């Protein structure tokens, strides 16, 4: 809530800083238009891309790495890399998949670096969203949500890296199989297999919880 406001304020502040544009800028701008303008050095266009995709990319990376601070750092890296490689987009209509793909690579590198250093990268604990909303639900519901959140967080942490990314993209982000292929570079068969196995694993780990909830 408070950060949402702060973001709004930051956006407004950026608006204060901006000079009047020669053409009107609207959130209805198409991805192709924003990419084309960003490539031409239009910083406002890239800021709009960031505004549109920062939240889903941040949440996606958080699902992969499980730590808010790290997820923010990796989101920052994702958008820096995205700006540097704007010329490499082959299909401008797939901006979301392209950004998620960069985010996935950045997260994977971080996970592997941490594994090399024998550090854990997924923390167990209530999510940021839960902490914010904790006061707005009944204590019983809050407890239930926290339990589910912890169980889900653990289940994600224990998934194999490939399965985790497929599960997150399908179940949380509702990406199609082909969009998941675009993000991950996996074959269709691997997407289906990993998704099936991930669902089975998560079902097994959340089993008692799912039964109780039903």
């Amino acid at each position, binding site marked *: 809530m*408070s950060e949402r406001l702060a973001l709004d304020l930051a956006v407004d*502040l950026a608006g204060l*800083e901006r000079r009047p544009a020669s053409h009107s800028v609207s959130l209805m701008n198409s991805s192709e238009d924003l990419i084309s303008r960003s490539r031409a050095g239009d910083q406002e266009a890239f800021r709009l891309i960031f505004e549109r995709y920062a939240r889903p990319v941040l949440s996606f990376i958080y699902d992969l790495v499980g730590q808010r601070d790290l997820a923010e750092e990796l989101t920052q890296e994702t958008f*820096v890399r995205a700006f540097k490689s704007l010329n490499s987009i082959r299909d401008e209509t797939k901006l979301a998949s392209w950004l998620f793909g960069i985010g996935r690579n950045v997260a994977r590198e971080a996970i592997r670096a941490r594994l090399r250093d024998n550090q854990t990268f997924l923390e167990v604990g209530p999510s940021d969203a839960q902490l914010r909303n904790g006061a707005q639900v009944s204590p019983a519901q809050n407890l239930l949500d926290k339990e589910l959140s912890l169980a889900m967080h653990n289940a994600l942490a224990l998934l194999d890296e490939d399965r985790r990314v497929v599960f997150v993209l399908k179940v949380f982000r509702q990406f*199609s199989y082909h969009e998941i292929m675009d993000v991950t570079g996996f074959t269709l068969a691997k997407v289906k297999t990993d998704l099936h196995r991930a669902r089975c694993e998560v079902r097994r780990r959340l089993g008692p919880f799912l039964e109780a909830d039903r």
Partner: protein
Amino acid sequence: MKCAECQALVQEYFDGELDQRAAAAMSVHLESCPSCSTELEQLAFEQRVYQSYEHELEVSPALWVKVRDRLAEEDNGWTLTLFGRSQIAFSKLLSLRFGTAAAVAVALFAIVVILGVMKQQNKQEVPKQLALSSETLPGEKRRPGETDIVSKQVNSNGAEGSIRGPQKKRGVVAGLRAETVRGKSSLVNGNAREPKTPVQFVRKAEQQYLSAIALLTRDAEQRPSRLDSETRAKLNSALVAVNRTILSTRKAVQRNPNDPLAVQYMLSAYEKKVDVLKEMSSY
């Protein structure tokens, strides 16, 4: 279709990935097979449970600034305005390994310095009769160098009530009033208007409040478990109220950037938010 085939395809059917013909065959089978339809129901039920998992994060206002600063620093054809460059310098200062309290102190110190400079500027630039025309600022007697932002004690009973006092941010307000009157007098005299330096100072103060708010928000959210639910609820509702006030006052300032009262209320609202967040962080 046999059950084995159906079981193999049920995930794709549920995900909407089957072509029309295969989906139709599945539908027919599922209508007549309780075992297979149970599997489909299980997938649907699990999806509903997973959807209730709250994992969406809000984007910190500092994130875009960091991205922009890195692009500027790494020379990617990304150029910054003067305001942007000053923001980089400020964010670098904050990124030093200070504690949160120290960082907030630095931010507040910077605000004090800015307001001091503004006051000094106003002394030099504002004609005497303008300085005396502060009819809405009772009790204008102040010690030299005194600033309102750090010395004001905020009433903790609700966000909006506490920002109505006209005693705050006199430096900024006086600067803006002087700017407004200067504008009027220049119109009268037919002279070109001078640059709006007080407005720039207000923007900078606002940015620094924002940085302090971001730091305190992070700090407050890292330790909510120490708050009992009643206190947390009260603080959250105070935050909601103050957030609403900030939004409305910012809109007013955007509409009338030279309105001293709007600026005064807006900065008071920011200050109130800092106070509430400090209160949350103190538990």
